[in-house]
């Protein structure tokens, strides 16, 4: 059988970087082929070569058995290669059909648009995907999952035989992931080949046929997804075995309660949530996407208003109405979206570390003491092992894991002893993940109270001393950490809907 895509000995160099070293990759028709590797391993570069964005410096590329030279994204598109980027590129104010056929709208005479034909063609594509979606819906009103379907439909409208999906499930909840997988299986059955980039191991087991691993721009190997243990794949990715040490739960019976939340409510998003965290404890927050965990964190932190609820820190009631109040009380919040909510990415490491505490570095007249700022930044660069050429490096140039460490440094320097981590390892590669885990454990054992919100159950289970589970704005239970709690226990609570909410309350 001929391969849909065959890449042999692909080479790519950028100034100072050997980005792809003799990389091979093949994709068969009707196959889901996962491409794995840590951030910076060269996956995206390889895919950019395949989609014609970068010219290759060496090697051969065959599509449908014929050697081709791609001189641009258009050439790749014409060969039936479609790419769905991680960040969706849809125009939110246009309809679904308008988005799919942007730039190729069917026309009537005198340059008028043929909306009827446009919508009819969109429906045709949806039918082939077995998807019931009104082509006249405004894209901005759709869920992220549905928007992703629109992207897929758009790729298919170019009669793509090869689909590249870059972390398609990053923003999806479990139900939506299942929906996506149904579509992927249907495309597979039609003979479309899919290159699937993801960091989530459990997904690979569900959807992928083969897995190719890259590391440091080099091809490491290709294995069958079904009969290769996850630990093997991880060790191929990081070049070493990553141990999964079980949680050690400290005895906290005598420890002080640092944070106590009672009756926290806001509309339907947060309904009467009460819990407490002790000094030295890591409390995990599990739940499906949209369960209200981030909302709880933001309400405690004063980033969003709340209707009711009391927040006690060190036993004292705190009136928190804005983030500045929470910080004063010693609460730090590390958002899942570091780039938008955590860092001034265009500024250097030094400023970002000091961002929450500039007043400490200033004289009476507001003049900054740069030397002290530099010392502090360098101190944390050493302590947290932040990999950066210097404290003057702009943080946007750091890797995800190191950016996260900069945010952590900011809060540590501010003396926050209650730290709320929202998806602490999102966008961080496997090797750096275990470093962040180690750091969180150390922070707890040093006597801080840690809350970890995570959508990845293994992460919650690996870190938490206790696990709070939420579903649709309610806290449905708090489970003990450690081995006696299973994923099934958590999932049971995470799907425990209030009876009255079932009929129409379930958000689409």
């Amino acid at each position, binding site marked *: 059988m001929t391969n849909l895509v065959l890449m042999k000995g692909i080479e790519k160099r950028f100034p100072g970087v050997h980005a792809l070293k003799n990389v091979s990759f093949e994709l068969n028709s009707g196959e889901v082929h996962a491409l794995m590797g840590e951030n910076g391993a060269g996956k995206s570069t390889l895919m950019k070569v395949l989609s014609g964005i970068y010219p290759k410096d060496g090697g051969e590329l065959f599509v449908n058995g014929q050697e081709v030279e791609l001189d641009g994204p258009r050439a790749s598109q014409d060969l039936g290669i479609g790419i769905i980027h991680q960040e969706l590129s849809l125009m939110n104010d246009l309809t679904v059909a308008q988005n799919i056929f942007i730039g190729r709208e069917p026309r009537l005479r005198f340059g008028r648009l043929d909306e009827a034909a446009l919508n009819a063609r969109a429906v045709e594509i949806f039918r082939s995907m077995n998807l019931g979606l009104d082509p006249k819906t405004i894209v901005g009103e759709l869920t992220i999952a549905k928007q992703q379907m629109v992207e897929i439909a758009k790729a298919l409208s170019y009669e793509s035989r090869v689909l590249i999906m870059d972390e398609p499930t990053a923003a999806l909840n479990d139900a939506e992931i299942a929906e996506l997988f149904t579509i992927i299986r249907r495309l597979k059955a039609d003979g479309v080949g899919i290159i699937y980039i993801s960091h989530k191991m459990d997904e690979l087991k569900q959807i992928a046929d083969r897995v190719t691993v890259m590391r440091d721009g080099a091809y490491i190997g290709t294995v069958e997804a079904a009969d290769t243990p996850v630990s093997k794949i991880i060790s191929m990715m990081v070049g070493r075995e990553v141990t999964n040490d079980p949680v050690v739960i400290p005895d906290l019976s005598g420890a002080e309660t640092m944070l106590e939340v009672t009756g926290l409510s806001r509309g339907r998003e947060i309904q009467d949530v009460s819990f407490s965290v002790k000094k030295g404890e890591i409390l995990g927050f599990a739940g499906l996407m949209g369960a209200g965990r981030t909302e709880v964190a933001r309400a405690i932190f004063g980033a969003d208003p709340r209707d009711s609820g009391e927040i006690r820190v060190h036993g004292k009631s705190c009136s928190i109405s804005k983030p500045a109040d929470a910080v004063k009380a010693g609460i730090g919040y590390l958002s899942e979206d570091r780039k938008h909510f955590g860092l001034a990415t265009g500024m250097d490491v030094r400023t970002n570390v000091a961002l929450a505490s500039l007043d400490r570095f200033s004289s009476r007249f507001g*003049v900054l003491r740069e030397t002290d700022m530099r010392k502090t930044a360098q101190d944390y660069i050493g302590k947290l092992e932040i990999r950066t050429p210097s404290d003057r490096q702009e943080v946007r140039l750091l890797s995800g894991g190191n950016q996260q460490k900069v945010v952590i440094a900011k809060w540590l320097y501010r003396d926050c002893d209650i730290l709320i981590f929202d998806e602490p390892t999102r966008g961080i590669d496997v090797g750096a993940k275990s470093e962040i885990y180690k750091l969180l454990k150390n922070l707890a054992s040093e006597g801080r109270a840690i809350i970890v919100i995570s959508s990845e159950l293994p992460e919650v289970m690996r870190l938490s001393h206790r696990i709070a589970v939420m579903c649709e704005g309610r806290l449905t239970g708090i489970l003990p950490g450690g081995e006696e709690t299973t994923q099934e226990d958590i999932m049971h609570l995470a799907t425990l809907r209030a009876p009255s909410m079932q009929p129409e309350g379930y958000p689409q």
Partner: protein
Amino acid sequence: MTVVNSSSTPSLFARLIDTGAHQKLLAFASLIMLLIGFSIASPNFMQTSNMIAILQATSVNGVLAVAATLVIITGGIDLSVGTLMTFCAVIAGVVLTNLGMPLPIGVLAAIGAGAFCGLCSGTFVAKMKIPPFIATLGMMLILKGLSLVISDTRPIYFNDTPGFDQISRGSLIGDIFPALPIPNGVLILFIVALAAAYILGRTVLGRYTFALGSNEEAVRLSGVNTDFWKMSVYSLAGAICGIAGILIASRLNSAQPALGLGYELEAIAAVVIGGTSLSGGRGTVLGTLIGALIMAVLTNGLRVLSVAQEWQTVVTGAIIILAVYADMVRKKKA
């Protein structure tokens, strides 16, 4: 690990061009080229008196442009700088001429009025969440109207306040070094620029000015009172407009209530030519000064070459587009 190491080389390179150093260099080179070009074209251009006229013309626009720079770095825009300048001049006129107060009180009143109006704009933007463009557009019209109302639409002259015209026209430097008759207005521009550069580079207010433009939400979630700092920046900018008001009133020895409209665009143009990003987070006072000088040299040079006023405006517009285009090309290359 290799990732970080490998990215350090291009990053240093990227930083060099990204900080706007390149744009400043470009702007500076254009300034020199303009100077050379005009002096070849006309022997009258490189006269000391003409150079001083250029500096004098830069002083008011330059001070306003410095004020605009501060606001623009926060990611905002201030359309009211021109009419605020006039309003402050009128306030000085009322205090000095109509009320007969001593000179320092008049100056302080003008600067205070500027700071207060800036605070109002800042409040609209920070507390009431009105987009800066709209808030300051409203402020621009309010101040234009108020200037006319307060002055009864007539110019207020400062003939009763001896020494008022010397604030801008006198020359402290010239008194000491007669060979360098640099007017005080220019001296004040440089002091304002130095102070603004110091505030931006070395103080908490300055750091937050950049941080607000870089990522306001991240700053707020760091527990910083962003509203307070934003209002502070607008107030400071307003106070600087007050200084500009004194300068222009002193130069004309009168407060002209109908003046002011159009100055805000010249100021913003100078800021943009100087390489400050309109999306916030990046910019320098030095760049703005060069930008203001380019505008002044251009206007003056074209006048010396007897190009009609109408065409001067056309050229200025073209220069703005060219400057920003050069900036875009540079960014694409990086």
